[in-house]
């Protein structure tokens, strides 16, 4: 088991253990690879030295300090760990679909580090995923940025503590279907979606004022002020208005994207990223000017009406218009080959290698507010790295090893087949899942739909 690996590694002096309060940090020397830095060009026959989880040196003829393992990467390619800006892997709950605004709900509360999907993502080179609330609500819950430190049962070990707060918004068919048609509450139309957001922000402004008034009044001698009701929900909206939280908004149609851009401008919100945004290309100049860009599918379309008029050239058009563009999966299946999804931008739009690779590394890092820490191979950044046997943008490439904070969590040659962290003691026959449900944005809302199959089927 992985535990044995840790034990051996401890013997070898690579001290790491999840028992300690700190997360494991490793040291390793990767030699003689073609290093795709993404931000500083491609370096041939180059070494990368990692110490205590940080990229210490990128250069040639580096030697390993004592106790540090060397990995011979001759003929292989090294790139930064892949970042998936839209995922639901590792969450026990995806949608608290009972109210159109649930900003008080936190995905950090329901992280499940034992989901085998995390390991499978590692096997596809993904080191960080943005574990998001689902798209059932207009203003959903706060998301969790996860580092794929596989093998622990403690959720805190995989939550990236130094990542900024983000929150999920959703526009269009999903929230109107869940609340308007499913429950008879606003919104049931795109008009209602805008109203819910504006109302929420305006109420938050009143909430902020009520508390500010109370705080100053109660400091006075002999005051008779009573505290207003406390609401984590509105406090979170206040935090958004104060620029403390990045909005990631699930959206498809050009008009609703444009609507939210205007709402954001009205409330002075600049930390806004659009997710999926299949029609983002139709308002690419606006997205580029007023937001932190778009995180899109490579080629999903037509499974709902709002994505019927999309194009696989979406990422290329957004990128060409200078919007920060990333490619995401929103799927436990796609997350395993995001490098292939990014490569599709070379077929649909002729992106260069660095442009395509940026879409799964530095660009999503910027959208998650962690680009100072990860997203490229530069000295000083966290050592999230992936080794491929051939160029990552070739369709035939096979990931070989994946490192998070310098610790190797995936090795195609050494890893066991069965990676489950725990097994039920009463399991007689293992469950077999046929044609797995891959899009999980609407998980936990099935009870509202009789034709649930249609909504979820990606075929």
């Amino acid at each position, binding site marked *: 088991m992985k535990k044995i690996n840790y034990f051996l590694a401890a013997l070898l002096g690579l001290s790491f253990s999840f028992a300690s309060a700190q997360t494991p940090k490793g040291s390793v020397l990767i030699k003689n690879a073609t290093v795709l830095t993404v931000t500083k060009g491609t370096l041939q026959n180059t070494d990368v030295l990692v110490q205590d989880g940080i990229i210490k040196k990128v250069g040639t003829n580096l030697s390993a300090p004592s106790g540090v393992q060397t990995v011979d990467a001759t003929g292989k390619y090294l790139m930064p760990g892949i970042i998936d800006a839209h995922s639901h892997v590792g969450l026990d709950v995806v949608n608290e679909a009972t109210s159109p605004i649930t900003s008080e709900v936190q995905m950090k509360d329901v992280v499940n580090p034992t989901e*085998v999907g995390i390991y499978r993502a590692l*096997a*596809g080179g993904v080191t960080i995923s943005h574990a998001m609330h689902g798209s059932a609500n207009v203003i959903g819950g706060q998301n969790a940025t996860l580092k794929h430190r596989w093998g622990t049962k403690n959720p805190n070990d995989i939550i990236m503590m130094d990542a900024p707060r983000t929150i999920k918004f959703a526009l269009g068919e999903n929230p109107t279907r869940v609340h308007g048609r499913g429950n008879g509450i606003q919104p049931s139309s795109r008009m209602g979606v805008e109203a819910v957001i504006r109302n929420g922000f305006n109420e938050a402004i009143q909430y902020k004022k009520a508390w500010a008034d109370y705080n100053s009044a109660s400091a006075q001698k002999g005051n008779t002020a009573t505290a207003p009701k406390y609401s984590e929900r509105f406090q979170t909206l206040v935090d958004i208005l104060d620029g403390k939280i990045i909005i990631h908004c699930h959206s498809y149609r050009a008009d609703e994207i444009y609507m939210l851009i205007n709402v954001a401008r009205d409330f002075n919100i600049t930390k806004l990223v659009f997710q999926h945004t299949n029609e983002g*290309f*139709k308002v*690419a100049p*606006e997205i*580029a*000017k007023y937001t932190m860009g778009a995180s899109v599918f490579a*080629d*999903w*379309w*037509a*499974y*709902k*009406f709002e994505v*019927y008029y999309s*194009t*696989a*050239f979406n990422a*290329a*058009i957004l*990128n*060409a*218009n*200078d919007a920060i563009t990333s490619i995401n999966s929103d799927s*436990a*299946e*796609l997350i395993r*080959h995001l490098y*292939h999804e990014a*490569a599709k931008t*070379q077929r*649909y*739009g*002729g992106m260069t290698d660095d*442009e395509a690779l940026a879409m799964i590394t530095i660009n999503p890092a910027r959208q998650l507010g962690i680009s100072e820490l990860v997203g490229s191979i530069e000295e000083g950044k966290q050592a999230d790295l992936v080794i491929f046997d051939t160029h990552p*943008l*070739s*369709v*035939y490439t*096979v990931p070989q090893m994946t490192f998070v904070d310098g610790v190797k969590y995936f090795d195609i040659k050494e890893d066991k*087949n069965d990676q*489950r962290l725990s097994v039920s003691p009463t399991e007689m*026959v*293992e*469950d*077999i*899942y*046929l*044609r*797995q*449900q891959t899009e999980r944005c609407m*998980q936990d809302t099935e009870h509202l739909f009789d034709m*649930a199959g*249609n*909504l*979820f089927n*990606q*075929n």
Partner: protein
Amino acid sequence: MKRLTKTFFAFLIALVPMMAMAQIDGEFIKPRTGKFLLKNATVVTITKGVLTNTSVLVADGMIMEIGASIAANGAEEIDCTGLFIYPGMIDSGTQLGLAEVSSVAETVDFSEVGNFTPNMQALTAVNPNSEAIPVTRVSGVTTVLTVPSGGLFPGTAALINLNGYTPDQMYAGFKAVVMTFPNSGRRGRYDRRSDDDIKKANEKSLKDANEIWENAIAYNSMKKTGAALEFYPEMDQLAKVISKELPLLVQVDAASDIQNALKWLEEKDVNVILSGVAEGWRVADEIAKSGYPVITGPVQELPTRESDRYDTPYTNAGKMAKAGVKVAIRTDEIENVRNLPFHAAYAAAYGLGKEEAWKAVTINPAEIFGVADKYGSVEKGKVANLIVATGDPFETRAQVIHVFIDGYRIPLSNRHIRLYQEFLERSPGLESK
């Protein structure tokens, strides 16, 4: 803006072949038949090796000639120097044309009411004008098997070329009656039935299947003697399987179900094609022994079990081929059938090998469907289903720049491309407020 200009020019260059077709701004380019000479390419025949500096002559919908130097004789000449000619790819399992927007039930036509409906014809329900068809064929997939799904015998699948304005124009000469073999797996993460319920449902399905089959055999024998039988369209269709007029396409995935299916089919004298076969690698030797060909996929799919190795679906095809099974690859997609080359590439990279992977999307399905005299390779006398690409069409970097289906030169445009053309540099652009 530098990026924009660079991409814009790259895009213009990509449009050059279309410009060569004398495009007038706004004119709609139609599929054209005629005589075409594809000059001086590397021809990957699939069955007869790779030929360099070779030309291919297309006329009357057929591959007329393959050779080093062929006289044009009035054919439209297309210079393919530095390019690669492959046979059009065949996707052995899709619902292409049978659904438009999955979440809008009115547009979904691959499933009908009833457990026993083999007489439902996929072919006639195909929408030849589905938006997904032009989206698909620019990737080099020229032919697909479109398959009904749902109950025990959901309908009759049909092989179609992705060109034509009526289903009959698209029909590529093969049909099969589909059987969804009773399965013991869960339908997805949301299937929360208990183990007992699943087992019971499985047993009931098998019981139904046995009853229906017995009746079908009896029906078929009576029919052969000319007996006066009551109108029973479902039995009529199934009788065609029993009389071996049509093969039986058996959808089955879990290992124990595959074993059950092999046993069930053993004494039955029908032509069988297995489809799905997600856990085929677990029982590869038994499948090989049965001699049944296998259509498997999607390759880019999650493992069926939590305890499975992460790359199990990628390695599935390769393991079965190694055991001696004839393998074809499918996407089981509706609107993203265009990803077939990538599914095949994954199977190739994870054990199947490039050569076998190419066969799995060309000659293998052609042979399995009994149409290898017409499709599946670049050979003289076959139907002109050809693609011309800048490189290996499995690679994302490669561009497919010419597609021929049934000898028609297909315009490489679809809504995705048109939207790209309209919005790459939007006019008006950003309004300055």
